[in-house]
């Protein structure tokens, strides 16, 4: 009897420790968001004081007005939205079509082409950076969102992902039956495969959208004019070109971060699953 009591007590102590550990981790994870908000709502002088402000001040609106007078915040958000959503839409279509072909059609060289596709995933993107920039200048796409969107459509992982999903979720019998009924290949894709692979679409869409939204190096290289900046480049400009007003800088950063965080909180289960699943499955 006494033995079991001792055991439960020990268990609850270890459990307390688990809670403590997780709570510390959660606080450290969330604190910078709070800190961002605190600074976004404080005057620079309150931030640059010892001790600095730890609670939100009354500068929330004014700081953001300063942001708006320094960068085209909404324009940059809009550019980011365009880049991320157009690329995502394109990738969904191209990758599902290619994945469908790799999963369900027989054609010569298929395996070789697929292996080639996997190999391309291993190459670091910086390797081709300079010639890519050169191509973009030749195409006259500098300062054009096309420079981000079109190369962004290349997504070997997406094709791989779609192929895996389609192979195991779209039954061959269904396709054969549709063929006997005289369905064209595209109609089979559209009417049979697409409805089945909606979950795979959702996963890939989240991964791709996040990736495009956060992309920095490539936009930095090809977007040189303010009207074409994505939000990441605009934020960088905020710290780079003007007098250091931390309240203003953090205000821009905060409002650029909030929309994504809200979407994440609303769909957190799907987000977490999608973003980690991608890594694990490959």
């Amino acid at each position, binding site marked *: 009897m006494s033995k079991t009591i001792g055991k439960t007590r020990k268990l609850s102590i270890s459990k307390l420790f688990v809670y403590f*550990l997780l709570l510390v*981790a*959660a606080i450290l*994870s969330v604190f910078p968001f709070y800190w961002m908000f605190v600074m976004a709502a404080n005057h620079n002088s309150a931030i640059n004081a010892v001790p*600095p402000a730890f609670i939100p001040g009354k500068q929330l609106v004014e700081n953001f007005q300063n942001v708006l007078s320094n960068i085209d915040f909404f324009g940059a958000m809009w550019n980011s939205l365009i880049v991320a959503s157009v690329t995502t839409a394109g990738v969904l279509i191209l990758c599902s079509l290619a994945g469908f072909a790799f999963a369900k059609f*027989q054609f010569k060289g298929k395996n070789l082409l697929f292996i080639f596709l996997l190999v391309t995933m291993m190459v670091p993107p910086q390797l081709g950076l300079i*010639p890519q920039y050169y191509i973009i200048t030749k195409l006259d796409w500098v300062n054009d969102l096309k420079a981000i969107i079109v190369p962004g459509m290349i997504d070997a992982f997406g094709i791989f992902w779609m192929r895996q999903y389609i192979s195991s979720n779209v039954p061959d019998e269904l396709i054969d039956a549709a063929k006997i009924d005289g369905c064209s290949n595209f109609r089979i894709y559209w009417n049979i495969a697409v409805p089945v692979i909606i979950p795979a679409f959702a996963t890939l869409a989240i991964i791709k959208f996040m990736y495009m939204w956060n992309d920095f*190096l490539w936009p930095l290289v090809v977007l040189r004019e303010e009207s074409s900046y994505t939000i990441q480049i605009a934020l960088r400009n905020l710290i780079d070109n003007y007098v250091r007003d931390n309240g203003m800088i953090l205000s821009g*950063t905060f409002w650029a971060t909030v929309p994504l965080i809200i979407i994440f909180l609303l769909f957190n289960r799907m987000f977490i699953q999608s973003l980690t699943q991608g890594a694990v499955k490959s």
Partner: protein
Amino acid sequence: MAQPQLQPQTETKPVPAKPSPGKKRPFFHLSEKKKDALSGYLYISPFYLLFAIFGLFPMLFSFYLGFQKWNGLGEMEFVGLQNFRFVLSDPIFWKSLFNTAAIGIIGTLPQLIIGIILAYALNSALLKFKSFFRVSIFMPYVTSTVAVAIVFGVMFNSQDFGLMNVVLNWLGFDSVSWSTSEWGVKIAISTMVFWRWVGYNTIIYLAGLQGIPNDLYEAAKIDGASIRQQIQYITIPMLKPIIILTVFLSTIGAMQLFTEPLVFLGRSFREEGITVVLYLYREAFSNMAFGTASATAIILFFIIIVLSSINVFFTNRIGR
């Protein structure tokens, strides 16, 4: 000038080759087969076409450019191995390599260890508020790298009012000049990397932990195994593939570190924090030396290949 015709041969030909008759799937007759092959090539062609233009050609062209002297505008001039010699004898390149490695290790290693611990905690039975913890720990990953670098840049302000210095002073230590000192810069940047990725790795480990069948633990408990033994003999070996994966991904990610140091250090490209990709970027777009930048890209490419192989080799040996 010369190049642009080079690429298409190594690329797929979207022209449908005649499907060889009588292969694997006998239940379609020939015309159907041809149609399938045609659709197949058609559906995969956009990827290969785009990749040929924006992926393969640039990569090959980088190898060509590595041997040229070029400022991006004028004529190219063949200079043999001079670019490589220049880069490899440039102390700043070696500094950037050292910085990349140092930040990679400080930012990644603790991340993986703490990630496993947190995943283990999250996986413990009957835990309440599990999704609250999961969501908060994962949230940093949804933040853009630029935003992370800006926020932490302000926290790691070198003045006394920077949050980290406030904490240090409060604990009785002197302020650190985070943006100019050798290790201050590295610790600041590593912290950004750590904060953004630790939750991501935690969730990946958690997925791995959830994939371990409970029977194993039950059996171990019946045999009187302690929690430590359970971790050592069940958890770690079963988690090995995932650990290899995360080490692999982290190594590649660490080698490509760019955004955090650029945002944190501004246009100064300070030596304390310059990374290999930052060095490459500086050569190309600040010094307009596209030849040496390409040579750097090629060197980086080989470093990544070698590192990934070593990496996988060593991680494979854990727990053997």
